[in-house]
């Protein structure tokens, strides 16, 4: 490898690692905030101290998750400039304002009201405290809105023009509501809902395995399982629509996801294969005839564009192919688990059998894996572009020496590994102790 391409790889690895680490925490909190609102409202309505204890337990987990998100997010505001100096120079007039709106409308809102939510229960009235909790939820949702607007614009740019060679926004509504944005926003919000639901259900199941009589844990397990049972099928539909939208706007991404090397009619769905990027074919393929055409075009004989149409300018096939299948597999398992549990819990006093409790405990962090798989599909699927058709990833890198990148990457890796381990141990411990009324 040349020095430049090695530095590019290091810059990508570092940024990718950071963003992958960061996304874990908002993925939980965007939706967990609304679980907190629900617990708080249940307590205010019923006066039942058990709901307050439940709220306090999950607030602790929320606070910890929030801190993890904040510290890893700050890092990103620096790495935008250091790892990708060419990015802001080329599309800064679009990316900049979107990021600025995220900071102004979301970050301060959530961080300030978080203080009131965490420490203010004895200092403000219950209504104001509930309002603070709602504001934290609104802040996290706004944050998702702006960052996904930017991310979607990078995938499917719209509403921009040029002024004396500088790329500028001509129509901000088109920039924000670009073609893939509504699909990606819904898909991500549902992903957050599922991540939080399985976390709530999983940690509650973990508690119930240790203390079967814990009524609070039984209630939160119920909440998590029902939310999961409703959101999982919605997510499958949203994901399918998002895929059709991608087929229209980024056909190379879909061709890579489905490992379709050659343009043809009546394309089979590849269930499993080892895609060989060098020889441009699939080894050990297990296929269902015509199913890919049927799914993507709703017509078994329809033609699908293969990677040959885009060569050599298409994303790598193997990572997309496997990450997508990982995501779908987890989605199917989630559906099976959530619906089985919802069926068992259909009566009020019902309890889950132990195997299902173990199932939920095992799926505590399943939302993370599915989210990361989906994130890999969408971001690697954009390559070789950083901003589709406008800026190549390689053009945006540079500036920082390889040795500096290597040293800081090692530092970040070490800190992230320790933080992630500590986080998972501590929240499992908190939940395992149970809520104290």
């Amino acid at each position, binding site marked *: 490898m040349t020095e430049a391409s090695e530095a590019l790889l290091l810059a990508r690895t570092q940024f990718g690692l950071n963003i992958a680490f960061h996304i874990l925490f908002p993925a939980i909190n965007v939706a967990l905030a609304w679980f907190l609102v629900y617990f708080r409202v249940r307590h205010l309505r019923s006066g039942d101290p058990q709901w307050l204890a439940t709220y306090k337990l999950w607030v602790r987990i929320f606070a910890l998750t929030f801190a993890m998100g904040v510290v890893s997010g700050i*890092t990103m505001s620096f790495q935008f400039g250091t790892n990708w100096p060419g990015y802001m120079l080329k599309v800064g007039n679009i990316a900049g304002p979107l990021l*600025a709106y995220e900071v102004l409308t979301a*970050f*301060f809102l959530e961080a300030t009201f*978080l203080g009131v939510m965490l420490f203010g229960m004895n200092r403000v009235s219950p209504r104001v405290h509930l309002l603070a909790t709602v504001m934290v939820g609104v802040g996290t949702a706004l944050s998702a809105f702006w960052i996904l607007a930017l991310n979607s614009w990078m995938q499917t740019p719209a509403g921009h023009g040029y*002024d004396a060679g500088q790329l500028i926004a001509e129509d901000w509504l088109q920039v924000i509501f670009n073609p893939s944005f509504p699909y990606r926003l819904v898909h991500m919000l549902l992903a957050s809902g599922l991540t939080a639901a399985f976390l709530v259900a999983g940690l509650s199941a973990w508690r119930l395995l240790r203390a079967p009589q814990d009524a609070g844990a039984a209630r939160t397990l119920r909440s998590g399982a029902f939310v999961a049972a409703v959101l999982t099928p919605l997510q499958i539909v949203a994901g399918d629509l998002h895929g059709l939208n991608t087929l229209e706007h980024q056909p190379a991404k879909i061709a890579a996801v489905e490992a379709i090397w050659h343009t043809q009619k009546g394309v089979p769905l590849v269930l499993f294969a080892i895609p060989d990027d060098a020889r441009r074919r699939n080894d050990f393929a297990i296929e269902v005839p015509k199913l890919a055409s049927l799914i993507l075009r709703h017509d078994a004989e329809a033609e699908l564009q293969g990677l040959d149409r885009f060569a050599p300018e298409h994303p790598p096939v193997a990572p997309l192919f496997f990450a997508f299948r990982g995501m779908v597999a987890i989605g199917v398992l989630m559906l099976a688990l959530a619906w089985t549990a919802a069926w068992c819990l259909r009566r009020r006093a019902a309890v889950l059998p132990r195997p299902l409790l173990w199932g939920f405990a095992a799926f505590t962090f399943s939302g993370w894996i599915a989210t990361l798989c989906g994130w890999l599909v969408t971001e690697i699927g954009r390559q070789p572009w950083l901003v589709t058709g406008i800026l190549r990833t390689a053009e945006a890198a540079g500036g920082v020496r390889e040795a500096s990148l290597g040293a800081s990457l090692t530092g970040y890796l070490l*800190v992230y590994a320790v933080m992630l381990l500590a986080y998972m141990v501590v929240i499992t411990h908190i939940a395992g102790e149970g809520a104290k009324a």
Partner: protein
Amino acid sequence: MTLDLPLVFALLMGAAILAYVVLDGYDLGVGMLMPGASAAEQDVMVASIGPFWDANETWLVLGVGILLVAFPAAHGWILGALYLPVAGMLIGLMLRGVAFEFRVKAEGWHRELWNWLFWFGSFVASFAQGFMLGRYLTAFQPGWAYFLFALLVGAALCGGYVLLGATWLVLRTEGELQRRARAWARWGLGWVALGVALVSLATPLVSEAVREKWFAWPRILYMSALPLATLAAWLWVWRSLDRSDGKPFAGTVAIFALAFGGLAYSVFPYVVLGGMTIWQAAAHPSALMVVLVGAAIVLPVLVGYTAFAYRVFRGKVRTERYEH
């Protein structure tokens, strides 16, 4: 008259960075003072900053965000040149931030470890910020003398944050801890005097442009008001330390604001000293305008709910346990 957008954004960025330095400065200062306190006092110290630190740290994102959004060319330049100290600062802030949450949930030696990481993260972040300031003020020039200068500024900023943290504790605590905080503040004042003197002497030596701005006749006559006011604030803090709860913190904020104003005056109109002015680095006017409109609407609301949060937690820190 047309609006000079780069100038407006330079002022906004300055305000955001000053807000960060003062607000997170007292958080970091309290963090650095942790080893000097007993276990019970440590809980009070952390409780005094607990509701605020998240929002305080957000001012850093806003400051860097404005640099990124309004002066994209300078963002890459400055943060590229400061890559390793920035990485050090970020790792320090990470350790500090998560140690906050982990320490209250841990027991025994785990708790000791997170307390230590809380101190260590606060110290590394503070020192790195001072080091970055030192490198920035000497336009990232190579050579051991410049590095020595940056190291000294790093140490001085730690002292400055200790002063902020100690006077914050004087404001928010009572009894033995407050008495001790007053002593810590005197120690911090010494470091601040050294730091301000050092930077004031070194910056003109390093840069011809800075020398010109301060010492040209007759400008020196009215520009000397700034160092004199800083000295007055310093003396005020020193005198009020034993008599007042609120004045030392207010005086310290004044010292930081005056010193920051002096630095901003030295650097202006450059965003990279001697390398790039704010007008050369600025983003397209259309982008700046759309952010300015948003900022004009949101900032007053933001200041409003921030004031609300400080009102909710006004007065001395209560020792009762919070949700944690």
